[in-house]
C-alpha cells in the first residue's frame, strides 16, 4: 500500500491538468491520529493534499450523490461497489466519474488499536502490514490483521469492481473467510437471548444518525425518522423509537448494503450497527445469490420481480 498516496496525487493532478474532471474526491490527513477527512481538490496544485493509509474507512461514494460535475473519485473495493449501486439507482452517471481504484488490504478499527495500549496515542506510522502507535512513554507495533475493522476482516472484494485508473496492482482476495460468521452466532440464539443481544447492542445509541448519514445508500431527501408530517417515529430516547430507527434503517439497505462498514466506523458510541445489515446481506446471498454492487448489469433483488423468486417463506 505504500506508494498509493503518490500515485493518487499523480493521477489527480493529471486528471485536473487535462481537464478530464472538475474535482477529485479523496482523503486528506486528519488532525487527530487515525482519522482522515473526506476532501476534494480542484486544481493540480492541490493534489498534494490527498493521502491514503489504513484510516480511510469512510465511504467516498457518499460524497457524489446527485452531484452535477465531472468527478475523479478515489475508491477502494467497497466504495467502488457503492458507486455501482449509485449508478444503478441514478444517483450519479457513470460518464461523470473517473474512478481511481485502490486495491485495499483493509482499514483499521481505531477503537481496537486504542484498546491495545495504555495512554493516549499521539502519533501513528504505517508500513505495508503493520502500524506503529506511540504516545507518552510507549511505542507499539501492531500487525494490521489484528486490528482490522470487522467488515474488512471478512471482505472478499478488496479490489475495485469498476475503475478507470488503478493506483497499484490488484491485491490477493481473501479466501476461506466466513463472511457471515457473526450472523450465524446471533441466529443460533434463542428469541429471548436475541432480544437481549440487540437491546444491549443499541443501549447507548444517542440517535445522532451518523450511521445513517455516513452511508451512501441513505440519500432519501427526508428520512422517515425526520419526517414530521406525518411523524412516523417518535424523536425521544424511548427504546421503541430507537429500535424502530435501527430496524428500518437496516431494512432500507436490504440487498443494497455492500458491508463497507462506514456506518460502524462513523458511530461515536461504538455501536456495531452492521449486526443488523449483515443479516439482511446473508439473506440476500442465500435467497438470491446476491451481493450488492458487483455488477452494473443487474438490479438489486428487492428492486425486481422474477417468477422464480424464492417464496418458500410465504405460507
Amino acid at each position: 500500500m505504500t506508494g498509493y498516496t503518490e500515485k493518487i496525487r499523480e493521477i489527480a493532478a493529471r486528471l485536473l491538468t487535462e481537464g478530464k474532471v472538475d474535482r477529485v474526491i479523496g482523503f486528506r490527513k486528519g488532525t487527530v491520529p487515525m482519522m482522515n477527512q473526506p476532501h476534494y481538490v480542484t486544481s493540480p496544485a492541490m493534489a498534494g493534499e490527498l493521502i491514503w493509509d489504513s484510516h480511510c474507512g469512510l465511504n467516498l461514494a457518499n460524497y457524489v450523490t446527485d452531484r452535477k460535475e465531472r468527478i475523479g473519485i478515489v475508491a477502494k473495493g467497497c466504495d467502488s461497489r457503492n458507486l455501482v449501486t449509485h449508478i444503478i439507482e441514478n444517483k450519479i452517471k457513470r460518464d461523470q466519474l473517473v474512478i481511481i481504484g485502490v486495491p485495499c488490504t483493509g482499514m483499521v478499527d481505531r477503537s481496537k488499536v486504542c484498546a491495545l495500549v495504555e495512554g493516549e496515542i499521539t502519533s501513528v506510522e504505517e508500513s505495508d502490514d503493520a502500524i506503529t502507535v506511540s504516545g507518552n512513554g510507549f511505542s507499539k507495533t501492531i500487525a494490521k490483521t489484528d486490528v482490522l475493522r470487522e467488515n474488512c476482516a471478512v471482505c472478499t472484494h478488496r479490489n475495485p469492481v469498476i475503475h478507470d485508473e488503478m493506483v497499484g496492482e490488484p491485491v490477493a482476495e481473501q479466501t476461506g473467510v466466513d463472511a457471515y460468521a457473526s450472523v450465524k452466532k446471533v441466529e443460533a440464539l434463542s428469541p429471548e437471548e436475541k432480544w437481549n443481544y440487540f437491546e444491549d447492542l443499541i443501549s447507548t445509541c444517542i440517535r445522532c444518525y451518523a450511521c445513517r448519514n455516513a452511508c451512501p445508500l441513505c440519500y432519501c431527501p427526508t428520512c422517515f425518522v425526520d419526517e414530521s408530517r406525518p411523524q412516523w417515529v417518535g424523536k425521544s430516547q424511548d427504546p421503541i423509537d430507537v429500535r424502530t430507527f435501527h430496524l428500518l434503517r437496516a431494512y432500507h439497505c436490504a440487498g443494497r448494503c455492500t458491508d463497507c462498514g462506514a456506518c460502524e466506523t462513523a458511530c461515536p458510541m461504538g455501536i456495531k450497527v452492521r449486526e443488523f445489515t449483515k443479516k439482511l446481506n446473508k439473506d440476500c446471498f442465500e435467497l438470491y445469490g446476491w451481493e450488492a454492487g458487483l455488477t452494473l448489469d443487474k438490479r438489486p433483488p428487492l428492486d425486481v420481480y422474477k417468477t422464480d423468486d424464492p417464496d418458500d417463506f410465504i405460507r
Partner: protein
Amino acid sequence: MKLIKIDKKSLKEGIDKLKRTYGVFGPVREKDEFEFKALGAAEMPDFSFSNTRMSPKAIVYPQTQLMFTYSLNDADDDCRILKEVPMDERPRAVIGIRPCDALAFPLVRRNFDTPEYQDTFWVKAYEATTFVGLACNVPCGTCFCTSAGTSPFGKEGLDVLLVEDGDDLFAEALTPKGEALLETAGWTAEAGGGAEEKITALAATANEQISSTVAFDNIKNREILELYNAPFWEEEGFSCINCGTCTYVCPTCWCFDIQDETYGKSGVRMRNWDTCMSPLFTLHASGHNPRTKKVERVRQRFMHKLKYYVDKYDNGIQCVGCGRCVRLCPVNIDIRSICNKMNNFDSEACKCETASS
C-alpha cells in the same frame, strides 16, 4: 485557601455518606468507555479516566425530558390542561467533573437563566446540583481549555475542586455548597503544609502539557456578514455528514425541540436535544426551510459558537475546549482549525485573489 486532604482509601466511606443526602453521579467505565452515571449503592466513581465520552450535561439537561402530561378525554376535569411533570429536586452531587465541563454549566446558564426568562426545568436541576471537580493532571492532545476560558485546574463552575496526588486527594471548597458537601462526607482533615505548593506545581505541569490552542481575538471585530460569506465554508463543510454527534456530545450545545406524543386519549409534552445539523431543525410549519444546504448548517454551528455567542454575551466563545467534537466527529471536522480560520480570515486578501485570478 483552606485545603482538605482525603486519603483515597477513605473515599468510599465519604461517598457512602454523601449517598444518604445526595443523588451521587460519577464517571464509570461502561463497554470500554467512561460515562457519568448515577452511582448505585455499591458503585464508586472511577477516576482513571481522562474524560467521559458524553459530556455530563445530561445530569442537568437530559436528552429526553418529560415536561407535561395531558388528557384529551372530555370526561376528565383537567381535559386539555397541561400538568407539569414533578421533577426530582433532591440534592445531587457530581463527583469528578472535569474543569472544562464544569465551566459549561455557567456558560449554558446564560441561555437558560436570564432576568427575563428562566427555564425552570434546567434551573431547578442546576440549583440542586453540587459540582465536585477533578483537576486534570494529564490533559489530552485534543484539550484546548486554556484558550477557551478555563484550565486543567480551573475552578469556575465548581463547588469543590479535587486534586489527585498519589494516594491522596486534596479538596478545596469553593462555595458554601461545596463546604456543605465536604462536611456531609466527613472530609474535614486539613491538608497541612506544602499542599498548596504541590497543587501549584501539578497545575503548572498540567498547563504545560496543553498542546493545542485556538485564537478568536479578531473574530469579535469582524462583520458578521464578512465571516458568513467567507469562501472557506464550502471546503471546510464538504466532509460533514450532518449527523448530531458534535452537538450531542458537546457540553455547551443547548438546543432542544419540543414534541407532543399522544397515546389514545392522553399524552406527554417533552423536549429532546436537537441539533442545528439536522434540516428539521429549521423547518418551518409553512414547509419553508431557511437552511436547506449542508454547508449552511455547518456554518451555523460555528458561527453560533464562535461569533453570534461572542457578540451577544461578550464572554468568550460558546466552547470550553473539551475536545469531544474533535475526537468524535466521524469525518474529522475540527473546531480548532475552523476557529483559527475564522480568526485569521482576511476578506480583503481574499477579494484580491479572486479579482486577480
